[in-house]
């Protein structure tokens, strides 16, 4: 399907006045209207120019905001006959290291502290770079995007641990584990970053005004 070569070195659908359905991959003519649907499956087709970055930005901001309570609110309330304690993510990691399980502490630290932070940082960087139309090192940024897409799901580890413990350790007055409000915030952060990552269109990195 050779057509007249555009001005750019790389031809894009957009430069040819075409769009592709994100669901069924059907390539269609874009026409003049801003609001389009797939001719085959009816999925709304969003042109990047109409602000594909907006969703990512909104979700990222929400995740950043919720990151604060996810780290300050307790994620787990442990009550035994002797004592009652509330742990945040960081205090839990510290407790693990203190009691000698430094390997476990490291895993939790990486999964629950480092990865979400890294994701937030990378996403912020990507969004900023697209917004500010930076042109350098587009290849490296794309690689970063792939990376956060892969590791993102691992940060749900803490949520699973708390969920399991809260379900299993219900020994009445002897010992009891309950999920704290922090785990909700933390889960929301993870979910929001996942969604934000998905909504980010890496093609934007390559797009230049």
């Amino acid at each position, binding site marked *: 399907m050779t057509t007249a070569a555009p001005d750019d070195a790389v031809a894009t659908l957009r430069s040819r006045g075409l769009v592709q359905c994100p669901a069924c991959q059907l390539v269609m003519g874009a*026409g003049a*209207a801003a609001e389009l*649907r797939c001719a085959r499956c009816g999925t709304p087709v969003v042109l990047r120019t109409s602000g594909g970055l907006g969703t990512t930005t*909104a979700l990222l901001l929400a995740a950043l*905001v919720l990151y604060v309570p996810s780290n300050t609110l307790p994620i787990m309330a442990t009550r035994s006959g002797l004592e009652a304690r509330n742990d945040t993510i960081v205090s839990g990691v510290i407790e693990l290291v203190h009691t000698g399980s430094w390997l476990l502490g490291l895993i939790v630290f990486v999964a629950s502290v480092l990865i979400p932070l890294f994701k937030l940082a990378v996403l912020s960087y990507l969004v900023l770079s697209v917004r500010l139309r930076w042109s350098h090192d587009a290849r490296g940024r794309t690689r970063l995007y792939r990376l956060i897409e892969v590791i993102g799901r691992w940060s749900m580890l803490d949520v699973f641990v708390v969920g399991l413990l809260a379900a299993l350790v219900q020994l009445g007055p002897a010992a009891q584990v309950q999920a704290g409000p922090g785990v909700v915030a933390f889960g929301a952060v993870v979910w929001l970053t996942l969604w934000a990552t998905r909504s980010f269109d890496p093609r934007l990195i390559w797009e230049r005004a």
Partner: protein
Amino acid sequence: MADDDAIPQAIEAPRRSRWSAAQAIWLIPLLAVGIVGWLALNEWLSSGPTITIRFRSAEGIEAGKTRVKYRDVDLGVVKQVRLAPDRKGVIVVAQMEADARPLLVRDTRLWIVRARLSGGEVSGLSTLLSGSYIGIDGGTDGGESRRDFEGLETPPVLNSDESGREFRLTASTLGSLEVGSPIFLRRVRVGQVLGTDLDPDGRNLTLRIFVRAPYDRLVTANTRFWHASGLDVSVDAGGVRLRTESLLAVVVGGISFETPPEAAPPTPAASGTRYTLFDSQASALRRPDWQTLEYTATFVDSVRGLAVGAPVEFKGFVIGEVAAVDIEFDPAILRFVFPVKLRIYRDLAATVAPQAAAPAARGASAPGNPARFPLEQLLSRRSVERGLRAQLRSSNLITGQRYVAIDFFPELRGEKLNHLGSGAHEIPTTRDSFGELEASVSRIVKKLEAVPFDQVAADLQRTLASLDRAVNTTEQTVQRFGAELIPSAKAVLDDARRTIEEVRALAAQGQPLPQQASTALRDLSRAADALRDLAEAIERQPESLLRGRRAAPAEVPR
């Protein structure tokens, strides 16, 4: 553009609402900001002030773990424990919740709750497992709020909102009382000891006690408090008494109180009223001063066995008690005398028999009441002239307890004494029965001392020696008498028998009996006379056996 025909055209989908998905997505960060903002606001609102508490030691307190609890509700947590700058205590920093704000006022009290045993109660057992916590009892005055507190070393006995009244007791000794010791009213536990303080001069103790509502209304101005600690064994003129309060009081001590019956309806005493803590129930329930009259009776004899509190009896009826026993030197008689202070109960009075009521009622009674004859009138000058005296008497010979008896002594009637005149409260005394006995015994002893016992003894010894000799002589006499007299008496009897036989022979022969018989009878009569003379002579003069017959004993006419 032939290929273009193969490419379908995307459907134009006009905007159905004013909100596109791209715009709606911004609701999510808005929501997140809202939630976080609300959480932050909540946190900011619910976090109360940070307070510092100073304790002597931080035993059992851990930063980040130890809670501050009010009625077992968490109101805060200890954030930090550090040494006080002067190193004489510890400073505990606690983050309080907003709910605690009204509790943090001037008279708020904080203390460390540990397991402890006091006042017969075990408290804080749960802290053995869960660790100590800091108890807080909010102030009530609602005054200025405060952030720096001085912690109590012992938990306060009461919550500040417990209703009741606080009183003060002055005691001379603490006994086995301690903070938390129970207060009993008729052995019902109605309160507690809040605190004990030594007075600055060190002479007395001030006890702060608390009586719970509704029993606090039973404490009136006239109420008496006494030590109910342990056993109360008393030996008095009435014998031996043993008194105990409840078993708890025996073990941990306590205070009892009672209000003696009053004429006026009792009005509850004001909070903080000061009372005296008596040593025993007996001393506590003694009549108050306004119900007694003070008299003095000065005794010259020993007051041994007369104790303070001993009864004063009028013909066996208790009318008062001994308040004090003193000693004085009376230069007039050059002797020590013992003025004994008597408290005579004013409220006791004899009821006057109806027919005598008219003349006797002049001074005493209120209209409507039966006529009363107050005891003050008994102790009058007129009575003294009739022989009224005070006397020490023994009530219990085993324990030697004595009491003061007031009685009429008819033999002392008419003696003019200057006692019990107007205003004078001196009851004349007479020597007690012991004293009299002692005096007469000493008189006897004096007389006995005048007897020359040495001389009497020498005489007696001499007498005994001569008596001894006389006895010896008599013995010899009797022996000789036996040796000499009996053979001759036998001869006489033999003669007599022979004579009788002859008479019998004569009678048998039937010979001229009368003449011979009369001769024989004469002989017999003579023999009998001689025998009688001999017997009489021996009887009269036994020494004749020894010394021979004295001349003419028969001169003495018969």
